[in-house]
Each structure stands twice: as structure tokens, then as C-alpha cells.
């Protein structure tokens, strides 16, 4: 796995484990916001949503929008 693939894998893993949360997309976005360093976030934003599960993809988009909006 190279670094981007690993990030995709991690995001999916987080999404799977938070699937039972009341608001999974927000929970995944919050988790990534809290624990990933800026470069990791930037890398996955640049990578886009390929290979991401629907919840992970939605969470990444949510974060990316918030980042751009800010």
C-alpha cells in the first residue's frame, strides 16, 4: 500500500466502524478532523472519492467543503 491507498483504507475502516453511529457521516468527518494531520487531510481531498465507501466519501466531501469554506 502506498500512502494514499493507506489513507483510503483507513477512511473506509473508520466508516465501517462508525456505521452504527446515529449520524455516521458527521462522526467519520469529526474523527478524521480530530486525528489526521493537515497533510493527510490534504492528500485525501486531492485524491477525491475513488475507492471510498459512500459514508467515507460523504464525510471527506463534508470536510473538504468546510475547509474550502473556511
Amino acid at each position: 500500500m502506498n500512502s494514499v491507498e493507506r489513507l483510503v483504507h483507513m477512511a473506509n475502516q473508520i466508516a465501517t466502524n462508525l456505521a452504527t453511529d446515529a449520524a455516521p457521516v458527521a462522526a467519520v468527518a469529526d474523527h478524521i478532523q480530530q486525528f489526521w494531520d493537515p497533510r493527510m487531510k490534504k492528500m485525501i481531498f486531492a485524491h477525491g472519492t475513488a475507492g471510498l465507501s459512500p459514508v467515507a466519501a460523504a464525510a471527506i466531501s463534508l470536510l473538504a467543503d468546510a475547509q474550502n469554506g473556511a
Partner: protein
Amino acid sequence: MTYQPQNDFGTPESRSDETVSLTIDGRNVTVPAGTSVMRAAAEKGTSIPKLCATDSVKSFGSCRLCLVEIDGRRGTPASCTTPVEPGMVVRTQTPHLAKLRKGVMELYISDHPLDCLTCAANGDCELQDQAGAVGLRDVRYDVQATHLGQEKDHSNPYFDFDPSKCIACSRCIRACDEVQGTLALTMEGRGWGSKISAGLASDNFLESECVSCGACVQACPTATLVEKKVVEVGTPERSVVTTCAYCGVGCTFRAEMRGEQLVRMVPYKDGKANRGHSCVKGRFAWGYAQHQERILKPMIRKSISDPWREVEWDEAFAYTASELKRISAKYGRNALGGITSSRCTNEETFLVQKLIRAGFGNNNVDTCARVCHSPTGYGLKTTFGTSAGTQDFDSVEDTDVILIIGANPTDGHPVFASRMKRRLRGQDGRPGAKLIVIDPRRTDIVRSPHIEAQHHLPLRPGTNVAVLTAMAHVIVTEGLADEAFIRERCDWDEYSHWAEFVSQARNSPENLQPVTLVDAEELRAAARLYATGGNGAIYYGLGVTEHSQGSSTVMAIANLAMATGNIGRRGVGVNPLRGQNNVQGACDMGSFPHELAGYRHISDGNARKLFEDDWGVTLDPEPGLRIPNMLDAAVDGVFKALYCQGEDILQSDPNTAHVSAGLAAMECVIVHDLFLNETANYAHIFLPGSTFLEKNGTFTNAERRIQPVRKVMTPMNGLEDWEVTQRLAQAMGLDWNYTHPSEIMDEIARLTPTFAGVSFARLDEVGSLQWPVTADAPDGSPIMHVDGFVRGKGKFVVTDYVPTDEKTGPRFPLLLTTGRILSQYNVGAQTRRTENVAWHPEDLLEIHPVDAEDRGVKSGDWVKLASRAGETTLRATVTDRVAPGVVYTTFHHAVTQANVVTTDFSDWATNCPEYKVTAVQISASNGPTEWQEEYEALSTRSRRVETGIAAE
């Protein structure tokens, strides 16, 4: 201060709340009911002569030296076996007693060699003292030769057994039995002629069941069992109380010294974690501190293919600072980072993370807890609100059901295991606690002398969450949940949501059995026992955390404890057994990239401001890189410099090939350690470290207990570790001027609410403190969440079982799980440099007879262990401790490099690596793998020092 052994009160303390008053030698004495006359006298400073009694074990009454006279009683009862009674009138010294005692001593001495002047225990021998105390001047009996002239047993590397000096008092047997719980010793023959032996008469200590804890040596009143070191250097002349630097139990010791030379480490009776007990590591395995391979001078080199060049400290600091500045200027400040050590003190750890946050200007700081208990931090914080265990160790004394999951306490946390065993065996008529063990292996505690687990659930590695969810299913669907507790303490809606989830038919034990391989009926019975058996306490270890669902498992454990009301009082709780001595402290001190000291998120503006004002800097509000992320970033070419204090990530972290690629891609790797460890093969700068004997500071153990570490000798390398970090910071231009670690603790206390009341002065006064230490709890907090959870309402979190991505298949059909053993510690850098290698000279692969036979493997054969990540070779041992389909090994030896085969799958929430599950294949082997050979060559090359002599 001259040498004094710790006071011996003769018999154990009574825990009764009732008191009894009596008169001893005309003085009034009031003691708890159940106290012996001997102890009552000793507490008033009257020592009654004694030989077979000592306060670590129950009295036995065999030597008849402690006789006293009691008004209204016939004869002369033994004071060690006579409990006090109200109004008793006792005399300890009369002419009649003196005569009787002299007679007893005469008998003993007539069967004892009279070589006191040349005896190792001369001056520290109770037989000698008592002969003096009773005024023995000559011996009328002929010399008896019951014990004299027997051969010594030198087999144990740390203590000798000289049976000729034995007085058959049985203190050693009782200590092994009651204190350690191993029952390695037996007494043959009867009365006067009885002889002690380890196991069978034909066994020696090394080959017996003995685990070398030293309890018998401590209990022995003569030189029969004596430390080899005392034989070698003589008896100590002073002592300093300090804390063991090995495991998270945090035993308190007296370092007994002769000048600057350490003679022995003796467990301290007033130590609140260990209560006078020890294990082989803390008691004996400290020889690494003076090992010839220790590096004492700083060394630098331009490239890792160059030999090392020794330099003075000044040059080392100047060079290191210039390299860090160069890299920061060239690649940006985020190219720098560091790793704090769970073996160093709180003060040292705090300084390293401060250097990174305030000096490097980023949050790229992590610690080895990443690879062990980071899921504990995440899981317990989410559910309860604090990243730590809920109880003190004493709490186990009030536990009725002990549930151990993914922990092997007799090997990993031996002194606490002994305390657990005491409770499991019952005492003084009180029945023992019940035991449930959830572990793929049949660990020692499942079946040991006088202990048999009620339930052992040998699950398939990687299915912890499924097993715990199934237990929750049983508890909820059978109506065993403690709803009153939940309504009062937890969020009811969250509970309902969780209860509904676990109640689903798909989560029943029967339905999950094919996944977990745990018998459904057995699981149901275990769940019922935990829920209804009285006070239930959960103890867990790395078998819980080191999984892709490590954090989920911690939360599943917390759910179970809340659902059954097992939180917030003595005897219950959720207790992570921490690996390294200060892993709790390292986490508390802000070693994680997203958290400041005291577990406050770096994005929390108020917390940040506190630090910014104190330190006079601006902090980056974004989390930094975790260790695996640092390595990825290094491979990507953007992470270039690492300051690594007291950790050996190349050996301890998973997927060695990836770690070495990351390290090799950096331009400046600074290793600050005692030895040229494996990571140092990739280092450009080596800063020699100091041992726990050479510095002041504090460690925090698994029960949140902050304990002093005290300097007993001058650092051989010249500087304590905190001084090294400070000098480096100064070289980088930071204005740091600490003159003593106590000032660092003052800063920690100022910036961390849970440490508000901690200071060196307070610790000196009370011995130790369990955080939180606040205005509300000035003496600390042995038990947490007493009147409600720290986060407010306890939070139930739904934890759905997600199988790991690491799957067995035709090429890799077996599951490898890893662990450790008693005599070795972590990557073994310390213990391999002690005589402990006598017990564990190499890592072995445990394999079930069926799997072994399929592959034509026998015990002792070399086998190749291969996974998707890599392969290594080691020797096999065939045993049914592991289930079919599962293999197990330790990772204490660098040559084995078990982590060559572990993968970089990790916990979803924290990136804690999944050490406990790797799909592997085993095959016959004809020698070391290519990796092992190449690595061996690299190590040799990399350890050259310019003088031409290899350092290791």
C-alpha cells in the same frame, strides 16, 4: 543514613476495624482485633525473639523462640500464633523465658555452621541477631549434622541456596505459597530433620517451577537463600526508596547500596502497588544498567553507512541543533518530529513533547503507547471520560468475579498476578473469587496451583468484539442488566439503542459461535457469572488493544461494566494492564499528536492558550503525525528528522520492512538511548541516555499512581535524560532553565488540572499519589467515577463486529498472535543484557500438535514463519496451550524479528497496530532467511565506531 532492614512486625497486619486493648510489659497497647501478640509488641517497639515468623506470611509457630507469659494462661504460648484479647497481660522478658529461649537457640546453633565471620549474611542474619538477643554464649549439645555439609545449589543466576545453613523454619515455603502463589518449594522429612527443596529433591532451582521472584530470599532469616550479589560485594550500607523501571505494575523498591554500587533491589513493604512483593525483573534484572555495551559518549555520523564518531556533549548538541534547523529551513517545520519514551520519567516525557510543540513548532509527537494502549485512551475517554483505568490494585481484594481478557498477568504483570491469585484462592475462610479468562491461549492463570478458571473462552484471534457483544446479548436478553445503575449514571437513550443492538438474534452466542469458535453455552455461563456473581472486575491487556478493532473492544468492555453496574466502587471496574513502566504517564504528559497534557485536544483554544501563555509561543491547532503516519510521510519524502527517546521502533513496531524504509528515507535520525538499539542502525546522531538509577523524576503506573524515581548513582553518561533534552532545546535557542525535575513537575501541575496538587514535596511526604489530585481530592483518587462519570453520563457505544482485513487463506492458513514472557521485557534491550537469558535464550514458536504434525514439525525444529509482509525463522515448540489453527511467539529477540512478519493493519480509531492477528504459514526451514542475513550484516556494519572496535 546507615543500613537498616525494613521493620519486621512478625505477622501480617490485621484489617479489622475493631480494636483490642491489652498490656504488654506493663505498657498499654491498642491494636486491631486479630493482631498477634508478637505484632502488637513490635508496634510498640518491643521485639520478641523470633525465627519462623515474618510479617509477609502467616505465622506457623514452629521455632518456639517467641514464647511469652500471659496472666491466667498456663505454659508459655508462642506470641506469633496467639491473637490479642481484651485485657490480656503479657510479659515478654522473664528469667524463665530467657532460659527457654536460650535452650531453643542452642539446639539451632548446634546444627548450624559456625562460620559467621565469613558468611555472606554476616551482620544481616536473623539467626545471628537472635543468638545475640537471647544472650547465647555457649552450646552444650554436640554438633548435629542434620543439615551440615550439604551441597550448595548455584543454579539460579541471582541467588544461591546453601542447605547447610537452613534452620527449617519454612518461611521460604510460605512466602512462595502465600506471597508469590507459585508453590515451587517443598519440605521433606519432619520436624528438626526437615529439608527444603525446589520441586523434587532432584531438581535445582533453575529447573524447578521457581519463577525467581525472590520472595523466599527475602523471607529467609539466614544465609541459606542469599543474593549472589551480596556474596560478591557484601552487605549494603544505605538504602533509597525508588520505583521499578520495567512494567506498569510500578513496584516500589529499596535500592540497597554500598557506596555508589547497587547491592540489591528489595521490594518495599510500604509500596502501595506491590505491598512488599517483586518479580524477577525488578528484583534482579538490573545488571543492564552497568552493561559493557552501554554507550556513554555521544556519537555522530553523516551517513548511516559511515562508522560512528565519538564527540563531546557540546559538539553533539551544536551539531544536532544545526541539523534540525537546516532541515526545518529546507523542508518546512512539519518535516520534524519526535517520539517520547514510556520508559522515561513523566518530567522527561513532558520536556520532549514540549521541545517538539514549542521548539520544532508542530505537533508531530507520538509515543510507544501508539503500539500498545492508544485504544484504551480512545475507548475509555469516549465511554467514561478519562483515558485510564478506574481502580487501584488493592481493589482486587474486594472482587468476586475476575474477568481477564487478552492479558497474561503471570507473565506480563507478575506482581499484580500474585495479588490476583491470592484473591482467587481465598483467604482466612473467605472463599476465593471466581475467574473467567478470554484468551486464545491457555495462559498460566487458567490453571495453576489451587486455581482453576470457572470459564476459559479460547476465542479465535481477532474476534474479541464478537465475544463481548455475545456476552452483552446474554446479559440484556436474560434481564441481567443493572437498570437502576444505568438510569442513574448513564444516558438512557444511548443504552436503549445499544441494548436493542446487542439483543438482535445475529449477536447471540449461538449465532456467533462459528465466528468466535467459543462454545455458546460456556459463553452464556460466563456472562451470567460476570453479571450476577457480585463485584465484577475486568482486567485487560494488549490482547484487547492490538487489533483492528482495539478501540471497539475497549468500548465493548466499558459497555459490559456499565450494563452490570460494575463501576464506581471498590472491587469492580475496568482495568487496563499497562505494558511499560510509564506508559500511563507518557500518555498523561501529552505525548499524543492530538492532545496536550491531561488529554485536552489540541484544537481546544482555551487549553492551548494556557500553554501558549506559559511557554511564550504559538501552538499549531492541528493534530500532528502518529508514528505510522510519520513513517508514511518519510517514505513520501516529506518527513526528514526524528528525535527518538528511549524507544526502539525498528524492533517494536510492525512491518519492519516499512519501518526501515521510513527511517532510511530520513536525513536526521536522533536516537537517545542506553544502547545502540536496532533503530540506531538507521541513526545519524546517538545521544547516550541514563538509567532509572541515575535520575530523579516520577513514573505513573497502571493504577494512575504517580511514584518517585530517585537517583542513587551518578549518570555514567554524565547527564540525566531531562538534561539532555534541555541542552538540545537550549542549543536550538529555547530559553529553558530547569535546575531540577521537581520544577518540571511544578510546570506540569500548573498546566494540567488533574495534576494540580502534585509536587515532589507532596510525593516525598505521602509516598505516591493517584491522579486526579485536585482541590476536591487532595490525596488523589484511588477509585474513579464514584459519584458519576467524569464525562457526566456514561456513554454506551454500539460496537459492531467487523472482521479484520487480515484473512487466512490457502497460502497463509494459520493465525499468528504475539505476546511476552515473564523473564524478558519488551524488545529485550535491557533483559537480554542480564542473566535473565537463562530462562528465555530465544523466541520460540508455539504450535498445536495437529498443525505441527501436518507440517512434519517437532519441538526444537527450525521453522520458517511467513506472512504477506515477510518471513523469518525461529524454533518451534509443540504444545496444546494454543488452539489448532493458532501459533504464538514472543518478540524479545532482535534476531528473530517477529515484526518482519506482522502487517501494517491497525486499529481503526488510533492506528494501534494489529500485532495479535497475522495470517501465516509455517514450514520446515534450512537456516536464516535472506532478510535475517542481510539485516545481520547491516547491523554489524552500522555499529562500527571509528576506533575500529564494534560497539556490539
